[in-house]
């Protein structure tokens, strides 16, 4: 009690105003989430009710069962596709990018700076500029319609994730590698046994970013996939919404369930996310 009485009233007022402003802004930011969430538990009439129903009544869980049993929106199948897609890309990225980032961050070789410079350029290159020939290539190979075009490139690396990982590899003391060299470890073994364990957290961060990126990826699947059963969720949701324009409750349930895994993933791993963000901008 004594403690609070010491704080100046002006200060208290300031704090209150601050929080009022911040909470108001937060409300604006959360409104779409909230609307999506409650719409998922309303039927169409309730979604479009006037005046606005700010809380679903009754809570219609049947949207969920409807969504899961529809054959024009094979949600579970597409969910599994998304999981497969995201995890494949995350694994590919963690593997391939840690190789390249290790080379750029820890090893000295002629031409390294040139290649890394090109990597940074590739980072700034609009994706569409290289997309068409790549698309034509995959089509010629007959792999259009499969996940190969979407996943395989990541086994070679990705400019953004290499850039991000390199920041972490730069922090690994050179002496550690020297010590291992003196201990007779091969260069591959040094990477695998000595350096990778030091960047375990960054690798998880990169994996998380890759998962989020892939989960939300739209253009690639739109171009390469035609089979609804092969769609990832993002594309599945889009085609469902475009086709079944009237079934908002199902669309919203789908949107909610599409967004939810990423939100949960983020809430669980917030600290890692922020760490990753900091490292991706250090230029």
């Amino acid at each position, binding site marked *: 009690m004594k403690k609070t009485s010491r704080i100046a009233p002006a200060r208290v007022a300031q704090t209150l105003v601050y929080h009022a402003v911040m909470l108001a802004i937060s409300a604006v930011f959360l409104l779409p989430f909230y609307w999506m969430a409650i719409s998922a538990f309303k039927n169409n009439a309730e979604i479009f009710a006037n005046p606005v129903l700010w809380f679903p009544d009754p809570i219609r869980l049947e949207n969920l069962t409807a969504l899961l049993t529809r054959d024009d929106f094979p949600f579970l199948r597409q969910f599994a596709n998304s999981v497969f897609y995201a995890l494949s890309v995350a694994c590919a990225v963690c593997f391939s990018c840690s190789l390249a980032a290790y080379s750029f961050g820890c090893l000295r070789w002629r031409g390294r700076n040139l290649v890394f410079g090109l990597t940074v350029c590739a980072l700034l290159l609009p994706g569409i500029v290289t997309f068409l020939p790549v698309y034509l290539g995959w089509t010629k190979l007959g*792999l259009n*319609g499969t996940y190969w075009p979407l996943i395989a490139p990541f086994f070679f690396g990705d400019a953004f994730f290499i850039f991000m990982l390199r920041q972490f590899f730069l922090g690994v003391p050179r002496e550690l590698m020297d010590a291992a060299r003196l201990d007779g470890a091969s260069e591959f073994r040094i990477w695998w046994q000595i350096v990778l364990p030091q960047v375990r957290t960054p690798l998880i961060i990169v994996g998380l970013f890759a998962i989020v990126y892939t989960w939300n990826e739209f253009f690639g699947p739109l171009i390469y996939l035609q089979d609804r059963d092969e769609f990832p969720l993002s594309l599945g949701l889009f085609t469902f919404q475009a086709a079944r*324009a*009237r079934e908002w409750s199902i669309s919203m349930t789908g949107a909610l369930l599409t967004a939810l895994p990423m939100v949960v993933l983020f809430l669980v791993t917030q600290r890692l996310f922020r760490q990753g963000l900091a490292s991706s901008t250090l230029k």
Partner: protein
Amino acid sequence: MSEKTYAVPGSISRRRFLHGSAAAGAIMALPGATLAQAEGQLLLWLPGGSDLFCKIHTGLLEGFSSSANLGPATTVCGLGQDTEFTQALIGSITAGSPPDISMLWDSPVSLGAQGAFMPLDEMMKNSKIGIDTWPAGLLSSCQFKGNTYGLPVTAGVYTMWYNEELLESKGIPSDRASFPKTWVEMRKLSKEFTVWDGDTLVSAGFMPNRIPETMAIWSALNGGMLFDEANLKYMLDSEQNIEMMNFFLEWLDEEYKGDVNLIDRAGNFKEAYPDASSGLGPAFREGRQAGLISGSWLMGDIYADPVPTFTRWNMAPIPVGPSGTTAVSGTWPNWFVIPVGSKNPQAAFDYLSYLAIEGSVEWYQQIPDVPTNSQVSLKAPNSLIENRGAEFADDLTAFLATQAAIVTPMWNSPSQSFGNDQMARAMEKIYTKAASVKDALSDAQSAAQAELDRVMAG
């Protein structure tokens, strides 16, 4: 605003979503997109993909394959229906593993001209479905530089659909013969049904046309055309077309407060399906619109869809425009093509011959796409007989046959989808008053003509 809740549709017909979002459409699929066919085993690709549609075609192909002593056939349904389907098909052709037969919902001319589909003329020469067994106007939608790249096996026929009940409620005769014969009459009739509540459109009569795919019909009804096949010239900004658009625009101003936004807010008055971008319901089938232009497939959807609907619908010829004198109709055909690289081209063609005659009859029984080959005679579909009685069904089928006989040439440009998009663009500009009728149409004209010239030069 009270909102009706629609139950889950059980089956959806093919064009249902095409107008809504050109980008997506419903993409329904079975695994096996890259499945290549084996020698002697037919592989068929279908766009769209309601269960019913897919089932019918699977059955037809299997029946044919076993009677022709071919290996087990495969039908792949719904690899998208618009851009995505074409993309998948082109992909399979480029990769060298195309299906033997594919249905298309866009004119096969442009892709055929680019070498994607086999010309069928040789095979047609000695076949029961020779060139002369098809209506020339329809077949021209597959022909380019003397080659025929596909067959319009069946077609949805466009007519005016109207709500008999609404007409009667105003004391207006609801029989086909009494339906307006000209645009002016139709516009006059329309006013009877258009009710505004402030700025909210409660119900409407008819609408100035906003469906780009049917524009060729309206243009012909006004004595004009969009594309002059003989001279390979687009005619988008012809006098008749400018007059047509001006007529529609005046109509909009007079009856609909000159504001398409107000219309679109209130529901989909454009056509008989929910609107994908705004998510609003189809006013015609909600009983809030007196009539609209639509294809014959709508009757199948009316019975198949759980969207609130009504029973007393009927069809009439589309009225003629101020400068036009001849009533015409139009179609949206179901084209079939044999992609280049097909392993069984002859068997595929044999199937097309079968499908065009025996198969199309069965098809029409379940999904009202009208058979187009002259050797087929129409018989009323079962679902219609069940729902509206034999008399109505026979009458309607006879009517559809007369309409099919007066279809105007459409879908015959080698750059069909590009030209269609240009027309859509011009219409949207005109209706939102972003450009004058003349400017919008001449813009569209020059773009469409440039693309056509490019394709022709290719």
